[in-house]
């Protein structure tokens, strides 16, 4: 168990391409931090730099009290769960779990104890003598988790571990990862492009875009007070509507982008906004109405049985408007 500190961490490839720049992050002991962003935002590179699989070209990474920039992955006392699980296909589940301990010359009795304990915790005991190819996707995922647990490392690093599972299993495994991490109280850094995973798993989120940190905060902070247009559009199960300020009557503030979540637009007969409806998406629990207000595309969440009139009149829930500087994309204070 340890805290992980990133100080001005950056990565420039030999060709001059910058993948990550100027990341400062302090992960507390036992905290679960999620790095989230679209593909190509540098989140995996950042994680691999912490793991020691990529060289760090700028800044320092510390795990515990040590700067680990020049320490091999094996010496960093971390365990990693890979997107494709990276199970050794020629070894049984038991051998997969024991491999890291054997390499560290752990006594055989201790290996057996830890493997059995992990197998019990992850309900893998009946499968210990099987090869990875004889397991289902969820079981493979558990073996990958088990391989990390038996090591009892200072930190877990997860690189999109759920993206190869189907939607239902993903929900189950998400919960298992969360409870397991709570129980073991091991520091964890988790990379995902899925903002639902990020919101549900993280004690704190680090939203990355183009190799830079857009915002660091708890899931609710990031959701309620997105620091930039990018975060506003990225976090939230249906993306936030981002429109020019003059679309909204009485709010003509030049150079301002206004963000309103689809849930915060309420149909009301005397609403100030008038939307041309272009289509409806059925979500079961609700409906998503797409349309245009003043030339800007907007979507609205309505109850499942609601039939939108044409045009649909809407009002904005009080205090639900987010104001951003149109030029910099940054949040305007006082909004």
């Amino acid at each position, binding site marked *: 168990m340890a805290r992980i500190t990133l100080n001005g961490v950056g990565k420039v490839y030999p060709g001059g391409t910058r993948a990550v720049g100027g990341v400062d992050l302090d992960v507390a002991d036992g905290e679960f931090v999620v790095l989230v962003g679209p593909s190509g935002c540098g989140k995996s590179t950042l994680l691999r730099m912490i793991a*020691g699989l990529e060289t760090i070209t700028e800044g320092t990474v510390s795990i515990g009290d040590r700067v680990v920039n020049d320490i091999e*992955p*094996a010496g960093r006392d971390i365990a990693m769960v890979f997107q*494709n699980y990276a199970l050794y296909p020629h070894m049984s589940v038991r051998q997969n779990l024991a*491999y890291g301990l054997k*390499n560290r010359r752990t006594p055989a009795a201790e290996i057996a104890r830890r493997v059995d304990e992990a197998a019990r915790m992850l309900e893998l005991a009946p499968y210990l003598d099987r090869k990875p190819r004889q397991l289902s996707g969820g079981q493979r995922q558990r073996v990958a988790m088990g391989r990390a647990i038996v090591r009892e490392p200072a930190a877990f690093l997860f690189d999109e571990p759920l993206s190869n599972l189907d939607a239902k299993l993903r929900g189950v495994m998400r919960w298992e990862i969360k409870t397991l991490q709570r129980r073991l109280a091991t520091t964890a850094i988790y990379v995902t492009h899925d903002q639902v995973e990020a919101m549900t798993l993280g004690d704190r989120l680090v939203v990355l875009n183009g190799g830079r940190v857009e915002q660091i905060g708890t899931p609710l902070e990031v959701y309620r007070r997105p620091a930039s247009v990018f975060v506003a559009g990225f976090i939230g199960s249906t993306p936030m509507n981002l429109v020019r300020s003059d679309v909204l009557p009485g709010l003509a503030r030049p150079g301002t982008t206004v963000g309103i979540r689809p849930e915060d637009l309420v149909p009301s007969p005397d609403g100030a906004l008038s939307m041309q409806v272009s289509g409806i998406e059925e979500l079961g629990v609700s409906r998503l109405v797409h349309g245009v207000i003043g030339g800007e595309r907007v979507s609205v969440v309505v109850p499942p049985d609601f039939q939108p009139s044409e045009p649909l009149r809407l009002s904005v829930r009080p205090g639900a408007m987010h104001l951003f500087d149109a030029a910099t994309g940054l949040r305007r204070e006082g909004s």
Partner: protein
Amino acid sequence: MKRALFGNRLLPWLLLAPQLAVTAIFFLWPAAQAIRQSFLREDAFGLSTSFVGLANYAALWGSAEYLNAVRVTAIFAVATTLLSLGVALVLALAVDRLVRAGKVYTTLLVWPYAVAPAVAGILWWFIFNPTVGLLPYVLDRVGYDWNHLMRPRDAMILVVLASAWSRISYCFLFFVAGLQSIPQSLHEAAAIDGAGPVKRFFTITLPLLSPTTFFLLVVNIVYAMFETFGVIDATTEGGPAQSTNIMVYKVWFDGFIGQNLGSSAAQSVILMLIVIALTVIQFRWIEKRVAY
């Protein structure tokens, strides 16, 4: 398998005919002839032929020369296979580490495979020629008197080197493909699991390469036993003192130089049985036992 339906009953046979004809004329018929011939004995002038049963085979069993050929073939095949596999694996591992230049080296390293065995044989004959060759000159400087025309061990080293050389390219290609099919994340996971480069090679890379290695092992033994006639003929012609007279060379020598057709045919039947056995092993094991 997809089933094609033909309206005409004759058409499928017509389409198959060329391949069947080639197989029958160049494989089945000569094989049948060899089997027939192996039970016959001809007199020295080719005037009379008599049926002798298994006498040709029995004679081989008691022939010191033939048993020597079996022994020489075994040494030659094992040495050639191990040398070509070993060197190819080292080269493949080296290329696998390269990111950009890998393709260039791969192309260059495949070239020897395009050289005909006889040409390769001549090449090595010149390099190793005790009178005009470059290598004996160099070896002489360090105090070794190379002479593969006189010394059996030198001759064996020569034919093994000459045969393995062109084979390295072939094995190298398979190893490169095999290495590239091992996901990078396995190496990374093992590195995080505390395995150093040497340990990773022996516990991850080598076991995952085992299907490729096994395939190459069988294919190279077949090559060394049956396709090295050109190399032997161009360099040592089986000498000195039978020391490089491998089985396939002896078949040719006894049949076409020695004119002992019955014995030659019996020897080729034995070789045929060995090929069949190796092929069965390969198909059985490659299909079923893929190591993991």
